[in-house]
């Protein structure tokens, strides 16, 4: 048994999730998101963006004015707005008496795949109308594009004076944000962490154009069928926006205020391929999963649900499946699913959102499916891949969440159903 296993730690080192706030293309809170995942409801729609033209995307419909003024929206960024919405919703969900919370002891850690592309493209586009005279370049450009912007906007909105920053971790960022929050709580750098990930990526034409040039941008006559990880006819990524912020607390603090506990961090790992800019490395991915299991004092057969990272690309999906087959060969009870098939790839938010969509499984013991697998690619064969319909499981005790990104960053988070012992 690992000394790192969460149940071997004292309560002031055990980290629990006590609040969830999110916006996804198919839901603006956890209940809506979960209902959509169980109902097979996609959030992918037709979309148009400058230069690229007609394409597809996962677009969020949250009420940005719920927590911000029109002036806030004018001045800030979409990523900031997503973060503000999700953070406020998370705090509300956690049942915290927010005015009474010591704001200097709150830390904000948001994962981002990229930040600043949207704002820079917008400025250059506007500057074209002034013959590229930089006298017309906005003074808002720098505060909008500094890498900490999304987390910084949350501090301004919520009056948080503790540490804040973003974690740049490509598409592993959602998990990385959560991990960072947990680490900072364990170090007592903060008493409450607002941690997760955000994405505004559908507002930059560059990300669509780059995936298109790479041959990795999904197309389909029916937008809801475009994101199809593991399917033999998959043809790329659907870019999505979104955000998910967790309230994380040390267990003793959560118990002291009688907080609702969604689950406990049982293990995590981040490692690196060091092999390619974009192509994943299944060997390193498998090592990352194995390391997270080892740190949690767990074996593959302890895991009830694996939330896969698969994005719908030819090679990426097959390689993740290869890694998972290697690690989970000994487990016949572990179910595999994929939320990107519903919402597309929410980039910096993906890991955090996809984990959130599975958390209610601790209560209802249901594994949401992967949709759009009309014909399973043999290279993606996982015997317990849940497709089409949700699957009832005997009991869900552990969820393992994969989130991988470019430049070979891999992240794995394992969440355990909470029990005090």
């Amino acid at each position, binding site marked *: 048994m690992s000394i790192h296993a969460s149940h071997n730690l004292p309560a002031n080192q055990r980290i629990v999730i006590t609040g969830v706030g999110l916006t996804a293309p198919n839901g603006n809170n956890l209940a809506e998101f979960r209902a959509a995942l169980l109902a097979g409801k996609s959030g992918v729609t037709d979309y148009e963006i400058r230069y690229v033209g007609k394409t597809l995307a996962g677009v969020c419909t949250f009420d940005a004015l719920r927590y911000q*003024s029109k*002036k806030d929206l*004018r*001045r800030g960024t979409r990523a900031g707005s997503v973060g503000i919405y999700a953070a406020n919703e998370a705090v509300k969900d956690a049942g915290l008496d927010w005015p009474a919370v010591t704001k200097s002891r709150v830390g904000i850690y948001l994962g981002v795949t990229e930040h600043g592309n949207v704002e820079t493209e917008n400025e250059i586009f506007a500057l074209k109308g002034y013959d590229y005279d930089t006298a*017309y370049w906005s*003074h*808002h450009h720098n505060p909008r594009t500094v890498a900490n912007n999304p987390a910084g906007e949350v501090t301004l909105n919520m009056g948080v004076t503790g540490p804040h920053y973003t974690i740049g971790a490509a598409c592993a960022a959602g998990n990385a944000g959560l991990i960072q929050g947990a680490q900072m709580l364990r170090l007592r750098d903060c008493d409450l962490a607002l941690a997760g990930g955000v994405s505004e990526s559908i507002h930059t034409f560059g990300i669509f154009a780059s995936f298109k040039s790479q041959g990795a941008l999904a197309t389909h006559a029916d937008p809801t069928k475009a994101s199809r990880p593991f399917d033999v006819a998959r043809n790329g990524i659907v870019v999505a926006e979104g955000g998910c912020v967790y309230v994380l607390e040390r267990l003793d603090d959560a118990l002291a205020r009688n907080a609702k506990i969604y689950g406990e961090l049982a293990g995590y790992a981040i490692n690196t391929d060091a092999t390619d800019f974009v192509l994943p490395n299944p060997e390193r991915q498998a090592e990352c999963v194995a390391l997270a299991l080892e740190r949690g004092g767990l074996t593959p057969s302890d895991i009830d649900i694996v939330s896969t990272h698969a994005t719908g690309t030819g090679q990426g999906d097959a390689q993740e499946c290869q890694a998972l087959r290697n690690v989970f060969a000994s487990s016949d009870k572990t179910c595999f699913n994929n939320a990107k098939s519903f919402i597309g790839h929410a980039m910096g938010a993906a890991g955090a959102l996809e984990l959130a969509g599975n958390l209610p499984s601790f209560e209802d013991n249901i594994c949401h499916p992967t949709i759009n697998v009309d014909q399973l690619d043999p290279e993606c064969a996982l015997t317990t891949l849940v497709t089409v319909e949700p699957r009832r499981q005997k009991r869900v005790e552990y969820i393992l969440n994969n989130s991988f990104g470019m430049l070979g960053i891999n992240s794995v988070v394992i969440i355990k159903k909470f029990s005090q012992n």
Partner: protein
Amino acid sequence: MTTAEISEEILDILSDIAPDEDLSGLVADKPFREQLELDSMDFLDIVMELRKRHRIQIPEADYTHLASLSSTVAYLEPTMKDMVKK
């Protein structure tokens, strides 16, 4: 542009910069900052909008003239009186 038209133009810029504010009761001689939630970045927005909309370059030393509606109009009148309202 007439004085009234210049004033309308400033109010139009302000409505973009401060979209949550009710500008109907704005007192022309009273400083903007005493009536509206404007910070230094907002004042730079006024300068930028005048530059973008009318190609008016305001030197930094003259920013103090933009304190109130009436002082702004008085400052801009010599430059804008020969412009045609769009």
